[in-house]
């Protein structure tokens, strides 16, 4: 039986149209004009128990709107959702007991109170047995290194500390379904790594069903076997991460800053010249056919390089390429 079942889910926001100028403001007062914005457009998917799915898309694609509808706080305009057999909007309180939520940009902890106070209250609200609670707290203290933080008010925490606390607060009642909305946003690599490890250990060992939204392809690669890509409110890809990795993950780009203006350049096999622009040269290469040192060495043999940087493909590029038919052959 699927844990989450989404059918023809649609959300249309009615947004008041602001006309420019004073006259417009007055007109808006008497006859407000609205415009409809479809944030989520007839999407369908199912998740089985224990699946960890990456739900990705560029800003404004409809990720958070979907998550909010799944949690039950936002009412769908159309379509249906079943989470553990319940309608999350109609049975909001019952549904809340079985889910854990982290919104990376907001906190569910009490700002002015020490973390332990927030956790105590949350444990009470979710009816966590005191013995179980002690155990969980001990365990989280170790895995999330919360020891030093328990007595700290949330307002005095760094972003990374806050996120570790948020995760503890969201998972202390061992929910069956977990929604993580950009849990690594704004964090440095080290903290990201630690949080990914924690999510992996905690969610997989307990068989939680997880939906993870992120901009960070690293998160997805580390945690998910399956990804759903959404753009403009529609699902444009739903399938194994391997397909995405094979198609896009093998490419890297090197940007060289050159001393002189370069028009042409020879690159080794498996690499291609993307652009030459003023004092900048971009080269893309396939990791399975070449390597960063080969490409960089070849380029540096030909020209004087002031600086260079290596980057992974951006999510927005991937989305663009999917639109251009990049997955047509492989996915279908």
């Amino acid at each position, binding site marked *: 039986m699927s844990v989450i079942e989404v059918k023809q889910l649609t959300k249309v*926001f009615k947004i008041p149209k602001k006309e420019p100028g004073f006259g417009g403001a007055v007109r808006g007062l008497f006859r407000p004009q609205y415009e409809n914005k479809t*944030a989520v457009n007839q999407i369908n998917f199912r998740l089985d128990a224990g699946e960890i799915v990456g739900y990705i898309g560029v*800003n*404004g*694609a*409809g*990720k*958070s*709107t979907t998550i*909010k509808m799944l*949690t*039950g*706080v*936002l*009412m769908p305009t159309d379509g249906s959702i079943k989470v553990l057999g319940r309608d999350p909007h109609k049975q*909001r*309180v*019952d549904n*809340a*007991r079985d*889910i854990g*939520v982290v*919104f990376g*940009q*907001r*906190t*569910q902890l*009490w700002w*002015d*109170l020490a973390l332990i*106070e927030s956790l*105590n*209250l949350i444990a*009470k*609200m*979710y*009816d966590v047995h005191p013995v179980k609670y002690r155990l969980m707290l001990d365990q989280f203290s170790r895995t999330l290194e919360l020891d030093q933080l328990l007595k700290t*008010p949330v307002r005095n925490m760094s972003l990374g500390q806050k996120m570790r606390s948020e995760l503890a607060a969201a998972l202390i009642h061992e929910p069956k379904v977990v929604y993580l909305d950009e849990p690594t946003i704004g964090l440095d690599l080290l903290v990201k790594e630690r949080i990914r490890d924690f999510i992996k250990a905690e969610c997989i060992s307990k068989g939680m069903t997880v939906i993870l939204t992120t901009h960070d392809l690293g998160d997805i690669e580390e945690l998910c076997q399956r990804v759903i890509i959404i753009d403009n409110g529609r699902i444009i890809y739903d399938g194994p991460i391997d397909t995405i990795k094979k198609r896009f993950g093998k490419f890297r780009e090197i940007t060289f800053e050159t001393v002189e203006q370069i028009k042409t350049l020879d690159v080794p096999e498996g690499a291609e010249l993307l652009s030459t622009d003023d004092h900048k040269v971009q080269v893309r290469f396939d990791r399975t056919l070449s390597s960063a040192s080969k490409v960089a060495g070849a380029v540096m043999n030909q020209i004087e390089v002031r600086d260079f940087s290596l980057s992974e493909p951006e999510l927005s590029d991937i989305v663009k390429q999917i639109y251009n038919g990049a997955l047509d052959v492989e996915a279908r």
Partner: protein
Amino acid sequence: MISTARRHLSVYGALFGMIPKLFMAYQIWFWVGLVLNVISMAILVFFWRAIYADTATISGLGQNQTITYILLAFIFMPLTSNDLVWEFGGNLREGLMIHHLLRPINFQGMNYAQMLGGLVMNLVLNVPMVFVAILAFGLRLPTDPLTWLAFIVSAMLGFTVMFFFNWFLACFTFYTTEIWGLGVLIQGMTIFLSGALVPLVMMPEWMRTVVLSVPFAQALAVPVGLLAGITPLTNAPRIWLVQILWIIGLWIASTLFFRVAVRKITVQGG
């Protein structure tokens, strides 16, 4: 059944206890508030003494009785205040409403426990004001336990009336997202219409009718009238009944309104 009740008691007890803890994060406000309260209380007392300079009674109330009422109304003012409009507005603006709605307990119950915690804390914080009132302005507290009983029941009912009334008003913030105007309007109306400044019996007939047709006075003028000895104790059962009717009506109205209003939630951010 008993275990569920105990669980509820434990959750709501914890929520209740949250408010003093939050307040204590900013202890400086206690001292600032105390000084301001002493000044306001002195102004009210001197104002009423000046009015009574030429006359022995107004609407049948003597100077001592009126000043007792005014002092008690001042001390028990927290009965009228609950910050639901600010609470809702702030939560909506900062997108925190979703977190509160995602708790597996009754949202209204959660807020009631917290507002009750706030009430008890504010009353405790007002204890120094009781001493100021007794020592500086000659307040004499009633000693009859029945008077206190009648007052406490009426005060709790009145507080609950205001809770549901404010809940109803707070639902408007789902539509406006602007809270400052509504919040200030409610604060102003509360001071005038709760009977904090003038005993109800002194108001002209038409004004009293207006005041009693809105719920504010239920939380202050009505219970404090009992405590100050202006309203005879024999009226207490009828007063409680009226307050219970207010609660039932406002509970139904506010719950229905909330159910509709919460659908308007459009949490900012993609």
